[in-house]
């Protein structure tokens, strides 16, 4: 399977920003498969090779961390939950816009790709991301796919 354009774009931008990449079998108890660390002005992107097994998982993890880095949205280990949630919600919204742009999603739906599993395959993302995109576009954005 060829590497997708969005992943190439993500890596290219991360490299331009001077991000340092790491890979290892980290196994966070919290279940994370990727993590960004910001130290001073430097970002490090840590990918869990024990959990990221497919190009799709890599794409979702890297794009998610990419939007955190591009938006400078990281938080302290002891940050209040509200701040953590705000940064994560913002990253999820930006991630959805990158992985499942509304116009492309609407085009797919109008062409008969309407089931969650079909959209998941079409965009090569997890069904969870498709549900997140539908919730985001039809909820806070007030958009419709029809």
């Amino acid at each position, binding site marked *: 399977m060829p590497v997708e354009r969005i992943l190439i774009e993500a890596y290219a931008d991360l490299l331009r920003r001077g991000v340092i990449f790491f890979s290892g079998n980290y196994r966070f108890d*919290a279940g*994370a498969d990727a993590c960004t*660390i910001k*130290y001073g002005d430097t970002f490090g992107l840590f990918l869990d090779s024990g959990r990221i097994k497919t190009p799709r998982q890599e794409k979702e993890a890297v794009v998610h961390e990419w939007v955190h880095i591009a938006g400078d949205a990281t938080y*302290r280990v002891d940050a209040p939950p509200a701040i953590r949630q705000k940064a994560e919600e913002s990253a999820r919204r930006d991630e959805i816009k990158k992985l499942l742009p509304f116009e492309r999603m609407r085009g797919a739906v109008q062409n008969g790709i309407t089931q969650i599993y079909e959209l998941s395959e079409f965009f090569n993302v997890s069904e969870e991301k498709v549900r997140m995109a539908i919730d985001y576009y039809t909820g806070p954005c007030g958009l419709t796919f029809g």
Partner: protein
Amino acid sequence: MLKDKLRKARKDAGLTQKQVAVAIGVTESAYCGYETGKRQPDALKIKQIAEVLGISGDYLLDIDAPESAQDGAGLTFDDFTYAMHGASGDLTERDKQLLLDMANQLAAANRERKKNASGENPD
């Protein structure tokens, strides 16, 4: 400057001046004075504001990390920030230690990169 950092950090946290003022026990007007530079918060207030906004007091005060920390030796949780993908629960103590180890690894890699860059440009 402190006032600019306060304003940016508060907006990043999605809080109003009134919310921060209430959280640290001062009037909205007093807190507003911190952000306009008309008043200076004392050390205790800076600590409280940093906690409410989820940032470090050192950042607000422009205090650089000590040389040893800049070299990546003995970092603490105050020296870095993080974000994650795919986490479904709170961090365990092991997770926190893992993050600290990663921060040390990043600091060491950054130091190495700077050393290599300076070696490439001897003049």
